[in-house]
């Protein structure tokens, strides 16, 4: 019984799948870090009184949120690299760009919402001390807003992690792609996919548990 299990696809696929997991995590983490930077800039731009800044950021957010991420990644990988700039970018680069842009648009709304939720009196109190707009944002509004961003950013991590599975269509060797490679070779479709899903859950469930705890602690 034990030997049968050890010999089955449940176990034998694991080294292969873990290799994919590494790439999945790499894309997610780098994409989210860059996406947060992009999102912070776009989110603050959405609060700007400058029409151009507001306009650009709004178009960005609406276009990215209004189109499927699968179309976006194909656009970046096939459309942009070959037709528009004539440079071939690797699947991995395209995947990271896609997560950055996609998460960036959602994070922009998270940032906008969190900053907007800070009582206007905080801003006024800072400005009446003589702090500049930038200082007020940096020392007063942002630290409070950031706290409120943590739970939705955690959710975005989970969403982006799952979105990386779409990159199997451009042959990025992430978790789902590796799973497909494995069952194509072994025909053990069911067992492999069970393991693929379990590995996703292994990351997402602890993440949401930790998030819930943080949320309770922050009381936001």
């Amino acid at each position, binding site marked *: 019984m034990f030997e049968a299990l050890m010999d089955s696809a449940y176990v034998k696929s694991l080294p292969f799948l873990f290799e994919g997991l590494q790439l999945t995590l790499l894309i997610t983490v780098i994409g989210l870090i860059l996406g947060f930077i992009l999102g912070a800039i776009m989110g603050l731009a959405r609060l700007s009184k400058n029409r151009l800044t507001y306009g650009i950021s709004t178009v960005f957010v609406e276009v990215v949120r209004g189109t499927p991420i699968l179309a976006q990644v194909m656009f970046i990988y096939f459309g942009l690299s070959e037709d528009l700039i004539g440079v071939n970018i690797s699947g991995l680069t395209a995947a990271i760009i896609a997560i950055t842009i996609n998460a960036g648009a959602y994070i922009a709304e998270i940032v906008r919402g969190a900053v907007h939720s800070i*009582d206007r*009196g*905080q801003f*006024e*109190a*800072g*400005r*009446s*001390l*003589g*702090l*500049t707009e930038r*200082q007020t944002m940096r*020392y*007063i509004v942002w*630290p*409070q807003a950031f*706290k409120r961003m943590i739970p939705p950013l955690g959710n975005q991590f989970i969403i982006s992690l799952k979105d990386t599975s779409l990159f199997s269509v451009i042959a990025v060797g992430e978790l789902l792609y590796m799973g497909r490679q494995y069952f194509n070779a072994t025909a053990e479709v069911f067992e492999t996919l069970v393991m693929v899903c379990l590995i996703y859950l292994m990351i997402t469930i602890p993440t949401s548990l930790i998030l819930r705890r943080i949320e309770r602690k922050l009381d936001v």
Partner: protein
Amino acid sequence: MISVKDLHKSFGDLEVLKGIDAEVQESEVVCVIGPSGSGKSTFLRCLNLLEDITSGEVKIEQDIINDPNTDINRVRSQVGMVFQHFNLFPHMTVLENVTLGPIKVKGTDEQQANDLAMKLLEKVGLEDKAEAYPDSLSGGQKQRAAIARSLAMEPSVMLFDEPTSSLDPELVGDVLGVMKDLAKEGMTMVVVTHEMGFAREVGDRVMFMDEGVVMEEGKPQQIFENPQNPRTQEFLSKIL
């Protein structure tokens, strides 16, 4: 010290201030009273440009504050503001609230800013709350901390926007006490308030505002005991 000429302020189509003229002398305590919606808070907020001024002129010492060439941050650093809802920074301790302005705006070093802050906290009776966070303070303590925060900038004038209106009645006295001490020390103050006792006792002058204009102004005794304008009479008869 402060000179306001023909100040108008509109929010969209709604004209809230319809031509205010006012002077505040150095060391003077001016109390602004009037029914809600009379524009008195808006007037006060125009004095440090928390509201954009639609037309007219506000001059503080030598600076016309609504002149686009004026460095408004420098002016604001000399004009303290105390809010109805305190607006303390909840992510900072009381001490950090008080030292933020001096450190970031004036470039005071931390040690010096701390010393000054402790002195001010002692003055408002909160020296034992320096390391506390605003959430753990009572309303009266919060407002006194907010006053200390403003004073840390060593302003030449202090603006108070209904500083006791959101306090429980038993906590109002402490805050008014601190304000009274300030007035005695010669601080120039403009106070929007519903505390008629304070206006009468501490104010050098009272301005009665209604419908966006100053209806009547004068010495407290004159306004409270012998108001000339029928609107002033009506207002005072309702609240006294």
